[in-house]
C-alpha cells in the first residue's frame, strides 16, 4: 500500500457544501442540545449537594437556580431535554431499520420540533 496517494484525493461533499435541510439541522441540534444539557445538569447536581450540606449553602444554590439566569437555563434545558429525547427516539427507530426514507425523517423532524415545544409548554404549565 506504499504507493497510495494519501494527501491529494477528492473528498466527499460535507456540511459546507449543502444548504441547510430539515434532516441535517434537526440532527445537528440533537448533538447541540445533548451536550449543552451539561450546564443544567451541573447546576442541578450543585443544588442537590448544597441541599445535602445544609440550609445556608442550599439558599445560595437555590437562589441561583431560581434567578432569571437559572430560569433561562432550566427552561431552555427542559426544551433541549425533550428535543434530545425525541431525537434519540428517532435514532432508535432508525436503528431498527425503519423510517429511513428522507420524507419520513423530515416528518419526524417536524414532530421533534413541534413535540418538544408542546412538552416544554406542558412542563411550564404543570411545574
Amino acid at each position, binding site marked *: 500500500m506504499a504507493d497510495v496517494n494519501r494527501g491529494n484525493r477528492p473528498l466527499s461533499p460535507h456540511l459546507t457544501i449543502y444548504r441547510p435541510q430539515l434532516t441535517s439541522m434537526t440532527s445537528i441540534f440533537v*448533538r447541540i442540545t*445533548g*451536550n449543552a*444539557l*451539561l450546564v443544567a*445538569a*451541573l447546576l*442541578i*447536581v450543585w*443544588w*442537590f*449537594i448544597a*441541599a*445535602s450540606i445544609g*440550609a445556608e449553602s*442550599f*439558599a445560595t444554590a*437555590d437562589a441561583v*437556580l*431560581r434567578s432569571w439566569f437559572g430560569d433561562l437555563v*432550566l427552561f431552555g434545558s*427542559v426544551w433541549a*431535554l425533550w428535543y434530545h*429525547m425525541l431525537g*434519540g*427516539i428517532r*435514532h*432508535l427507530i432508525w*436503528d431498527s431499520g425503519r423510517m429511513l426514507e428522507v420524507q419520513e425523517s423530515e416528518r419526524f423532524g417536524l414532530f421533534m420540533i413541534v413535540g418538544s415545544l408542546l412538552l416544554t409548554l406542558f*412542563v411550564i404549565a*404543570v*411545574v
Partner: protein
Amino acid sequence: MAFLTDRKRAAGLGSAKTGTEHHWHMMVSSVALCGLIPFFVFTFGRALGGSYEEVVAYYSQPFPAIIAILTFLTGFMHFKSGVQVLIEDYVHGFWRKALIIAMTCLSYTAMAVGIFAVARLAL
C-alpha cells in the same frame, strides 16, 4: 478446519472492533433515560421552588430519591459516551485525548456528587 461460521466471526465486529459496543451502550442508556427523564423532570420540578425543609422532606421519600439517583447514574454515563463522540469528531491529536479524559472524569465526578447528595438528603 474452522469451527466458527463466517457469521459468528463477523457478528459485532466493525472495522474498529469496538464501535458496536459503544453504540449499544448509547442505545441502552437512551432507552433507560426515556423512562427516567419524564419522572425526573416532574419530581425535581415539584421540589424546586420549595423551602429548605420542604426539599429535604420531599427527597426523604424513596420514589423521588431513587429517580434522582438513577437519573444521575444513567444520565452522566450517557453524557460521557455522547461527548466522547463529539470530541472525536471535532478535536484531534493531544487535545482529543486530554478532553476525553477530562470529560470522563467530570462525568464520574458529577455522578458521584449527585448520588452522594441524594443519599445524604434521603437518609
